[in-house]
């Protein structure tokens, strides 16, 4: 299965893993999930919509990352997934 990962577990960063999937699935674990879960989900959905990706499994472990970081890590994880071999 093709997989891509990007990011770290450091403060203000996030660790994103993406897998090939036949549907869209998003999992979010966040240290600020009570306040920002919806925002993180929105950034994820907006980014994959812009990339015209629909079927992918995304797992985000968030350590307080801002939008720009979540978006950047997700784009690279997806790119690495494409480049990886099964």
């Amino acid at each position, binding site marked *: 299965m093709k997989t891509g990962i*990007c990011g770290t577990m*450091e403060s203000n960063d996030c660790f994103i893993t993406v897998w090939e999937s036949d549907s869209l699935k998003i999992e979010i674990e966040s240290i600020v999930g009570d306040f920002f879960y919806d925002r993180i989900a929105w950034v994820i959905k907006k980014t994959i919509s812009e990339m015209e990706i629909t079927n992918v499994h995304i797992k985000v472990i968030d350590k307080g990352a*801002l939008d*720009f970081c979540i978006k950047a890590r997700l784009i690279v994880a997806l790119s690495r997934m494409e480049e990886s071999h099964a």
Partner: protein
Amino acid sequence: MRRSLLFIPGNNPGMLLNCDVFESDAVIFDLEDAVSIFEKDSARMLVFNYLESMKIKTEIIIRINGMDTPYYSDDLEKIVCDKLDTIMLPKARVSDLQLLDSMLVKYEKNRNLTKKIAIIPIIESAISLLEVEQIVTYPRVNGVLLGAEDYTKDLEINRTKKAEEILYARNRIIVACKAYKIDAIDTPFTDVYDEDGLKKETSFVKGLGMNAKSAIHPNQIELINEIFNPAIEEINEAKRILASYEEAMKKGLGVFSLDGKMIDAPIIKRAQITIEKAQKFGVL
């Protein structure tokens, strides 16, 4: 006109977020030595998205990977944008500058950028030092940085705190930069816990003619800025000179004296530069 330039690892979002808190005159987002080869893609994407979304008051410099690596063209493709002020070019040679200049011309045109991106070449080898007099003539070049760690490695000598081994390089870079009125920027002081050492070295290089010093830790910025600020005595003296100059002009005098010393054009010019620096750096 800069006093301090702070290196920030390009793949560290926490440090990117705080980059302008430390009050350096410029921040250098590093895509080169601070980023492993396995993370070059994530660093450039992170820096690009950071620039897109944030407003930063300070000068934005990005150190791309050297033009002897497979990474520099992807760096440029991703990060050249209107928010970028300057590219820092490692291991700079004249041939690299020519190529970089031609690439930037294309990007600026194709991306409708509103300004011309400047370049700060880093002198990191013997051959680069031999070429510095040509390097400073390029219009985009508005400063030159000495990279002493790689430079001393190239010379196969030890890098020491005494720094006698880099005195020639410092002087040669300073003379070339002054000839073309651009910033001569000193190499970082790498012992981040030695404040006395930093103070001694920064004062010394200021005395040689360096305009600024790069830093690898935020704690170094305040001291570097303080040392490169014009001193209060210099500012007061400059004010006296310019006030006397104004009086002399009203009387139609070409030269005049102050405290028994003749004041001519070079002294007046230096006083004007002192006031300009003091105003720019907020000490006046």
